[in-house]
C-alpha cells in the first residue's frame, strides 16, 4: 500500500476503477452514436449522434490524461470542443438552408447526387 499522504491526493475513482472500464464505456457511447447515424433519417438527430461520438472520444482522452497525469490530453479535448462548436454552427446553417429549399430535413430526400 502507498503511504497515506500520497493516497489522499489521488482521486478515489482512479484508485478503484481500472482504465479498461473507461475504454468499455467510451466504446459503448461511440457505438450508440454510430447506430444513431445509421438508423435515423432526421438530419438534426444525425448531427446529435455525431456529437455523442465526439463526446465518447473526449471522455477517453480525459480518462487517459488523468490516469497518466499528462495535461496534453486535456488540451486536445479543449481543441476538440472548439472545433465541435464551429462545426455545429456551420452544420446547422446548412440544415436550415436545406429546409428552406426543399421543406424537409429528411436525408433520404437528398438523393440528387445518386447515380
Amino acid at each position, binding site marked *: 500500500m502507498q503511504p497515506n499522504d500520497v493516497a489522499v491526493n489521488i482521486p478515489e475513482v482512479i484508485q478503484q476503477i481500472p482504465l479498461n472500464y473507461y475504454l468499455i464505456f467510451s466504446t459503448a457511447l461511440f*457505438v450508440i452514436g*454510430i447506430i*444513431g447515424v445509421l438508423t435515423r433519417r432526421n438530419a438534426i438527430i444525425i448531427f446529435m449522434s455525431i456529437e*455523442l461520438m465526439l463526446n465518447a472520444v473526449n471522455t477517453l482522452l480525459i480518462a487517459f490524461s488523468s490516469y497518466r497525469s499528462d495535461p496534453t490530453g*486535456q488540451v486536445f479535448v479543449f481543441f476538440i470542443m472548439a472545433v*465541435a462548436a464551429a462545426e455545429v454552427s456551420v452544420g446547422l*446553417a446548412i440544415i*436550415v438552408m436545406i429546409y428552406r429549399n426543399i421543406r424537409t*430535413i429528411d436525408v433520404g430526400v437528398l438523393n440528387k447526387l445518386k447515380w
Partner: protein
Amino acid sequence: MNQFNTFLASFKNLTTAGYLFYGLGLITLISAISVVTAKNPIHSVLALIFTFFCLTGHYMLLNAQFLAIVNIIVYAGAIMVLFLFAIMFLNLKEEDEEAKTNVTKMAAVIVGGVLMVLLLSIFNYAPVGTYNPASFDAKTGLVERLGIVLYSDYILPFELASILFLVAMVGAVMLGKREAGDPHF
C-alpha cells in the same frame, strides 16, 4: 469467468466515488440510447443535454475540473441551445420522419454491435496500464496546469482556433442569410 469474479470482488469494496462511476455510467448510456431512439426531436435534444451533464460528472470524478466547467458552458450551454433553436425554427412534426425499413435498422444495429465486439476484443489485448502512485499529479486537470501547457506548447493552435471561429461565423452568416427570392420559412 475469472474476469467476472474479480469484477464482483472489486465491486464489494468500492467507496462512494466508485459506485458513482457505475451509476453515472449507466445513466449516461441509457440517456444516450434515448437520444437515438426518441421519436420527437425535442426529447432527443433534452436527452442529449442530460447526457452531457452526466459526462460532466465523469470529468469531475476524474478531477478534470476545468474541462467539466467548459463542457457545461460550451456543450450543454451553447451547442444545445443552437440545436433547440434550429429545431423550433424548423417546426418539425413527429410524423415528418418516416421510419427506415426494419431491415435497414437491424443491419445498422448489427454493424454497430460487430464494431463494438471487434473494438473490445482488440482493447482486451491492449496494455493500457494504470496510474503510477509515485509520480501521480492530482492537479493535472486544474486551470493552472492546463494554462501553462496551452499557452506555451500549444499557443499556435490556440491562435488558429480563433481564425477558425471567425471563418465559421462568416460561413454560418453567409449560409443562413435570406436571399432576395427565398421564402420566410
